[in-house]
């Protein structure tokens, strides 16, 4: 298994680091305060490959708290609001795109 840090890091726009919380699997986002949040609006946004690498490195170091951190694209609206940058991240944030058999 190659570490995500060994892979070449290229970003195409504003990006964040996301992972899943170890004890319950919840979707989490790396914050600027070297922590994690389930709230996308708290995530640290990076804009260069170097910044992304650094953010990823500190995230990967938190092996106890988070599983499988990776860099994901985001969209920043004019209002400054951070939105998921692709369908996969949209689904991770909002949940499944279908009705659950049992309403949540």
């Amino acid at each position, binding site marked *: 298994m190659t570490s995500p840090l060994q892979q070449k890091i290229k970003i195409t726009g504003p990006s964040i680091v996301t992972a*899943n919380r*170890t*004890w319950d699997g919840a979707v989490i986002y790396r914050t600027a305060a070297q922590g994690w949040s389930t709230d996308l609006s708290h995530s640290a946004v990076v804009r260069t490959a170097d910044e992304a690498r650094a953010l990823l490195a500190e995230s990967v170091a938190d*092996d*106890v708290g988070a599983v499988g951190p990776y860099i994901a694209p985001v969209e920043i609206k004019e209002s400054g609001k951070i939105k998921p940058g692709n369908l996969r991240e949209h*689904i991770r944030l909002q949940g499944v795109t*279908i009705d659950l058999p*049992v309403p949540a």
Partner: protein
Amino acid sequence: MYTYDELDRTLINERVEEFRDQVKRRLSGELTEDEFKMLRLQNGVYLQLHAYMFRVAIPYGTLSSAQLRRLAHVARRYDRGYGHFTTRQNIQFNWIKLAELPDALADLAEVGIHAMQTSGNNTRNVTSDQWAGVAPGEIEDPRIWSELLRQYTTLHPEFSFLPRKFKFAITASAHDRAAIKVHDIGLRLHKNDAGETGFEVLVGGGLGRTPFIGKTIKPFVHGHDLLSYVEAILRVYNRYGRRDNIYKARIKILVHELGIEKFAKEVEDEWLQMRGSALTVDDAVIEDIRSRFTYPAYEKLPHMPEELKKAAHDPQFERWRKNSTFTHKVQGYAIVTLSLKPVGGPPGDATAEQMDAVADLADKYSFGEIRVGHEQNLALPHVARRDLPALWKALDAIGLATPNVNLVSDIIACPGLDYCSLANARSIPIAQELTRRFANHDTAELIGRLHINISGCINACGHHHVGHIGILGVEKNGEEFYQITIGGRADEQAEVGTLIGPAVAYGEVADVIEDLVEAYLALRERPDELFVDAVKRLGVEPFRERVYATR
């Protein structure tokens, strides 16, 4: 129904305690994720998009009502109130917390359910025909051999770190409902001229990135030699399977690269050296396993009871009866399929309430036994025909009587991008839309048997390669696109489907499927020529033309 004895239960409990310790060491940091991942996979715990996914084993697709109730309990207590039945006769829960998993496993262990080896590079659930033990014309119950194999492969010290996953399937009927030809080892139970039980052994079948139909390695392996022969295959695979590239690590690649003759020779050489060993299965061992399978005390019942005669005037009941009930080997009984494919619903899901209700119905009408099929439906295997009208009413009340079994809206689909971190595209909404387009039962019956399989990525968990119509989700420039194949089959005439043309966008898939069905209805020779047979007869071209004429 196989009854676990003290030894079986002890092993499951010991496994739960081991996993509890492993989770503890993970959460404390003593185990890194890299070290833990393989351990959690060996207990069926994946990390998906939103949460952990927990895959529980249902050996050869057989459940007792107590077990089904316990699955409902897990859905309620540890998850979001529902579970998903898979194409390998297992059940998946999508929202499990790692920290609570040991408790969930302990709850399951109380009724003899485990999650051992439902993931990881080891030997997985030995699947079989969901009609095992009750299908007419079956040679003998394949589940006895499935259980023998299950025990042999559980926590096998030599084969717990294989190059890649390894899947077995067994069938004992002429019509293969277990898809043995697309498994790593497929076993076709039959008898030799002396009337002794043995197996045609096939190897190297599988779907995924590079689909292969399995090849016969030995036409008859005596039952006594089954385990030693399987051990020989596994040892050759463990030693020589590729470990440098996960996309080339399945046994199907080894068989392909060596060629079946050379591979067969490697296995034979290995096997000859271990024949007559402690692995020889003697009759006493088979009898012991057989003795712990309980079979119902069937009554002597008429084929056409009064209750059935009376109910025949109800067209809705009749439609369901003709669609969802099947001939049982014992007169007066029926095998009943419970469709988990309601119109507009995600295929293969059941709520905790539904599971509890089915458990009650199983107690009342099916000697407490339920089956799980790889087409993601449930079955009640021992229903007296006189009980069919009452059963139908009860099933209809809980939404499990959609009369679409084996029809166009009986879709097999993987969870896809809504759940799965491997997926490129969503599959469930595609399935849902298709059930809406083909919601009219008259139309569906007119079309006849038609298996649609949907996979959200090349890993093919939806078995799209062997669908009469196969749909494969791919990603193009950040958008969801779908490749469509036709003419695949999973049964004894297994073959891989053929691509009809360029991938189509998410919004167009349902239209394309409708076009394919329309083309079939126009081109079929007779009403009872199935879609898949029409494709075989005509080839892909006429269908391709119809679909791409205006696209």
